[in-house]
């Protein structure tokens, strides 16, 4: 496949999910990191950076979920999943929901013009990072990045 062959890339039913998934993972993890730093250093600029990273991460989950489901429907004809594939699907959905929940907590605080974000968000963010990481690990395992495939 030529790297600049747009038609081939766009028509590859399977490839987009594997590419797009890196955006929400990276944005969410760095967003949480900024939020923890903002909490620690009491800096509004870091809190703002966290908010916008989380916002874009949440938006980026939409094409990722869509392309993941399309890959399942097209490549595997929607057959009943089991094992690692099922685990990856479930954890991917949970990860997406958690990213949206974390963003919504930040959004609600900004909307109410409250100065301090609720403390309970930090454990939620930590759990979300772990689940996102595990989901990505399963995805990497499935895609064969650790093997010749």
């Amino acid at each position: 496949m030529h790297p600049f062959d747009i038609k081939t890339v766009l028509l590859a039913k399977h490839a987009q999910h594997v590419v797009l998934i890196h955006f929400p993972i990276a944005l969410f993890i760095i967003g949480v990191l900024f939020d923890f730093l903002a909490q620690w250093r009491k800096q509004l600029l870091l809190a703002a950076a966290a908010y916008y990273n989380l916002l874009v991460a949440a938006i980026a989950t939409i094409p990722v979920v869509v392309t993941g489901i399309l890959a399942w429907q097209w490549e595997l004809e929607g057959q009943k999943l089991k094992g690692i594939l099922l685990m990856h699907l479930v954890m991917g959905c949970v990860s997406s929901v958690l990213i949206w929940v974390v963003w919504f907590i930040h959004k609600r605080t900004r909307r109410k013009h409250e100065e301090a974000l609720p403390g309970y968000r930090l454990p939620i963010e930590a759990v979300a990072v772990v689940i996102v990481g595990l989901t990505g690990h399963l995805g990497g395992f499935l895609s064969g990045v650790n093997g010749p495939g």
Partner: protein
Amino acid sequence: MWIVGMAATAVVALGLLLAGSPKVAANTQQAATEVKIDNFSFGPVALTVPAGTTVTWINRDDMPHTVVSMDDSKTFKSKVLDTDEKFSFTFSKAGTYPYFCSIHPKMTGKVIVQ
């Protein structure tokens, strides 16, 4: 006395030959129609069989894989094969049948039916 010894040896050799040959033939036949999936690859990558042969793919990998023919009509297409699961297809017509794993499209192989 040596004649008795020779005869006994011949009888034993003949017995072993008769007992062993079918097993050897069966193993050769089985090995030739089996494709092992392991370490993100099909083995053998190219398999040549006579028409009417049933080829069986066995997933020995830790990952799920599929076996899907590349032609538009999808002559054969397995479900997702987990570890140690099998898929079989009987090739009745001569020709070359390239196939791949739809989860890992870089994994390819072909069956040549003569």
